[in-house]
């Protein structure tokens, strides 16, 4: 087996370094190809490692590759090392794979941007950080990756820093993530205090030494960190705003990889959840609530990317639901499948935006299927996949989550099922508005002439992702024990703490059929309302009006509420309390400083007096010691 995990983050890191220094010289498009190449190389190494690992027996598939000791100070021995096991390898594979495809796509998407090289600098740094996050063998090192991806995320959200919205979106993401990071840090303190180690394998091995209370506290704090990073209630509103960044960024960071880091963290620390009490329930409820809330919001948005963004929040909610009900494999399964179809949707949306010269309002689009057949097909594949139409990927992945939810608690399943209908609906709504109906862009003069299909460099990734989104379900098929590849692959890591569904084969069939029916209902609803009726909108004005009312209500309740919360955080907590404390302390110190500086007269004789003063003081102490 290949023991060279350090190469995986090293390649993008090297790419980052080279592009940071020589980026402008290398220029367009070579810089992009270079960045793509480094990520592809990481992917290749991951594949080789996988091949090696498959050859090993299941019990030998986990190893820690320690590079060196980072902090060798007293009790705190932090080692820089990589924990390679089936779980982290799955993450590495899909992170590098999807990243490579999105890098490739970006070469075309960013071709005309001034900050072309700068974009790939950040993107490569992001991939390196993400790989450190998923492979780190030590929580401190994980945190380095955690902060690294956050940093890249702010940089990339604010990539077009001259847009005020971009700048403020970056700020919002920053604040909400800080709340989550505080949770991560506190969790580390709690764990270190109790176990005197921060090495992940050591923590998991010594969980028995933890009191239930400590475990619960640590698990809740880690979950807080996860809600920040993964945009769950209550820290979810930064993600839709983050759509101000370039679309490949939305696909890579804010859909496929970084935002799922919270889920990964939960799965990685799943034995800790097992040890804690009631934390799993909290996670499940927060997850399913987020899924429903976000899905309802998504049904009313008019920005092509915001619909997908809320959809992302909703899908991650499903993943947390899976974590909460103990279906860790299903969470990872959905994460991978989601990475495929969600980045496909984002990239298709990017293609649309590209073709319409940066127009993002779907109400100004329409009838695009004639002009962008490739994009149309890709978007449709993504839509049907996310809707859960059999046999596309989400049908299997989401189905697995729902089966476990059903077996855990029927209430969770009901909410999840309702969300599934919404999911099929909102994505269909967007699909029909964008690709069918009037060519509103013509009347509104969004562009001159006809929209153009994207170049091959962008279509290639769409094709690859379409295929993956369609067949992603093959990863883990139910019904037969020999077909659940992912479950048996991950069994050494999460098998012992996973809950097994008590549904049975018959029940699984029934639930699968129910899922299909729900998907069809959602699709039909969208078709009925936005394909059939859209042409005759005046026929059902009342319903449309109601729809808008719903939009406003949700907007008020959730978006505004979220904004108010963010505003509260930003204006009151951040500005008044934190800044106030900081500035108050600062002005106090400044006052002290200006007082003290009066001693500093500039006269040598004064300085000499200072020396003598100190001398007399020390001598006085010595007199005391000598007992004079």
């Amino acid at each position, binding site marked *: 087996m290949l023991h060279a995990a350090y190469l995986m983050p090293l390649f993008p890191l090297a790419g980052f370094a080279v592009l940071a220094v020589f980026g402008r010289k290398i220029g367009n498009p070579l810089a992009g190809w270079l960045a793509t190449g480094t990520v592809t190389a990481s992917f290749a190494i991951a594949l080789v490692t996988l091949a090696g690992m498959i050859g090993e027996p299941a019990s030998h598939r986990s190893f820690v590759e320690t590079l060196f000791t980072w902090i060798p100070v007293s009790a705190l021995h932090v080692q820089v090392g990589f924990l390679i096991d089936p779980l982290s390898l799955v993450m590495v594979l899909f992170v590098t794979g999807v990243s490579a495809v999105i890098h490739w796509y970006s070469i075309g998407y960013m071709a005309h941007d001034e900050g072309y090289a700068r974009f790939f600098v950040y993107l490569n740094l992001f991939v390196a950080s993400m790989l450190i996050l998923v492979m780190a063998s030590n929580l401190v090192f994980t945190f380095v990756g955690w902060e690294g991806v956050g940093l890249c995320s702010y940089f990339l959200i604010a990539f077009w820093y001259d847009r005020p919205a971009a700048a403020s979106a970056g700020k919002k993401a920053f604040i909400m993530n800080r709340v989550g990071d505080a949770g991560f840090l506190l969790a580390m303190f709690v764990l270190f205090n109790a176990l005197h180690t921060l090495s992940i394998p050591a923590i998991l091995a010594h969980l028995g030494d933890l009191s239930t209370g400590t475990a619960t506290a640590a698990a809740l704090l880690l979950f807080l960190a996860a809600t920040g990073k993964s945009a769950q209630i209550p820290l979810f509103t930064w993600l839709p705003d983050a759509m101000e960044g370039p679309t490949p960024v939305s696909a890579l960071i804010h859909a496929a990889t970084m935002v799922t880091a919270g889920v990964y963290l939960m799965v990685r620390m799943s034995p800790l959840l097992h040890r804690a009490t009631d934390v799993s329930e909290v996670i499940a409820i927060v997850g399913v609530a987020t899924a429903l809330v976000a899905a309802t919001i998504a049904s009313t948005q008019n920005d092509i990317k915001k619909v997908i963004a809320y959809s992302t929040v909703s899908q991650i909610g499903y993943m947390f639901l899976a974590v909460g009900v103990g279906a860790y494999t299903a969470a990872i399964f959905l994460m991978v499948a989601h990475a495929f179809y969600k980045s496909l949707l984002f990239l298709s949306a990017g293609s649309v935006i590209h073709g319409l010269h940066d127009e993002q309002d779907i109400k100004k689009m329409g009838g695009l299927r004639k002009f962008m057949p490739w994009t149309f097909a890709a978007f449709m594949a993504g839509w049907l996949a996310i809707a859960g139409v059999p046999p596309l990927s989400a049908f299997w992945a989401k189905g697995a989550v729902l089966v476990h939810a059903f077996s855990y608690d029927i209430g969770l399943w009901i909410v999840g099922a309702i969300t599934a209908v919404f999911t099929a609906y909102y994505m269909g709504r967007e699909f029909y508005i964008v690709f069918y109906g009037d060519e509103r862009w013509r009347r509104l003069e969004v562009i001159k002439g006809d929209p153009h299909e994207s170049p091959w460099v962008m279509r290639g990734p769409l094709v690859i992702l379409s295929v993956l989104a369609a067949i992603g379900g093959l990863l883990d098929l139910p019904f037969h024990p020999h077909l659940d590849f992912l479950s048996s692959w991950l069994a050494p890591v999460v098998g012992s703490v996973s809950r097994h569904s008590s549904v049975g084969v018959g029940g699984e069939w029934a639930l699968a059929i129910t899922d299909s029916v729900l998907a069809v209902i959602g699709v039909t609803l969208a078709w009925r309302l936005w394909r059939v009726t859209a042409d005759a909108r005046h026929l059902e004005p009342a319903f449309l009006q109601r729809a808008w009312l719903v939009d406003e209500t949700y907007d008020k309740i959730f978006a505004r509420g979220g904004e108010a919360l963010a505003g509260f955080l930003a204006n009151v907590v951040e500005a008044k309390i934190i800044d106030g404390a900081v*500035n108050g302390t*600062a002005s106090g110190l*400044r006052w002290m400083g*200006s007082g003290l*500086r*009066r001693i*500093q*007269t*500039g*006269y*040598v*004789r*004064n300085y*000499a*007096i200072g020396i*003598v*003063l100190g*001398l*007399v003081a020390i*001598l*006085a102490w*010595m*007199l005391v010691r*000598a*007992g*004079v």
Partner: protein
Amino acid sequence: MHPGLVPVPLLATSLPDAITFAVSAVIVIAGAIGVVVARNPVHSALMLVMTLFGVAVLFVEQRADFLAAVQVIVYAGAIVVLFLFVIMLLGVDRREAVSADPLPWQRPLALVLSFCALGSVLALGFSGAWSTGAASVTGALPHRAGDTAALGKVVFTTYLLPFEVTAALLVIAVVAAVLLVRVPQLREQGGQAGAERGGAAGLEGDPEAVSDPGVDGDPQGLGERDREVVPS
């Protein structure tokens, strides 16, 4: 460890010795004060000669004849004469412009502190006693054959390296002298914002006044300048 140690009280010598010590000590201290106080640099130099002679007498009293001779020949003879040459070359009449002391509390405070320091050191010195009963463990030299040989011995054994390394100090002094006497080509005015500043500088200048307060480079309004200008 130190078998030769004998408890030696401070004034356990003969009366003539004590008187010699007292007289030369007064000469040394008076000379030192004179060096600082005298307005005329020639007087200062002569006071220095007085001090050095006093020290030479103290050396003799401690039977450090060689040191006494060196003291007189090298310091009083050569070095102070060199000082005098320089002073004469630069002009004797040039007097320091000593204005009123801007810090009236400075002198009394310095006096008080100095006496505190002196008193503490003396008190500590008298308070101490080792198990041998001595305040000091360094008695007389083991061989009373004069200090020249003893000095020669330590200089080439125990203190060989320090002795050799002292040469570096002399080289530094030479380089420093060359550097300091070289007439600086003053920088041309113009172009540089700070070129015309620095009026308050000099030995006793106010360092805060030297820098340029003009630019507002502060994001948070920190560090508003509340410098006080001390007349000099």
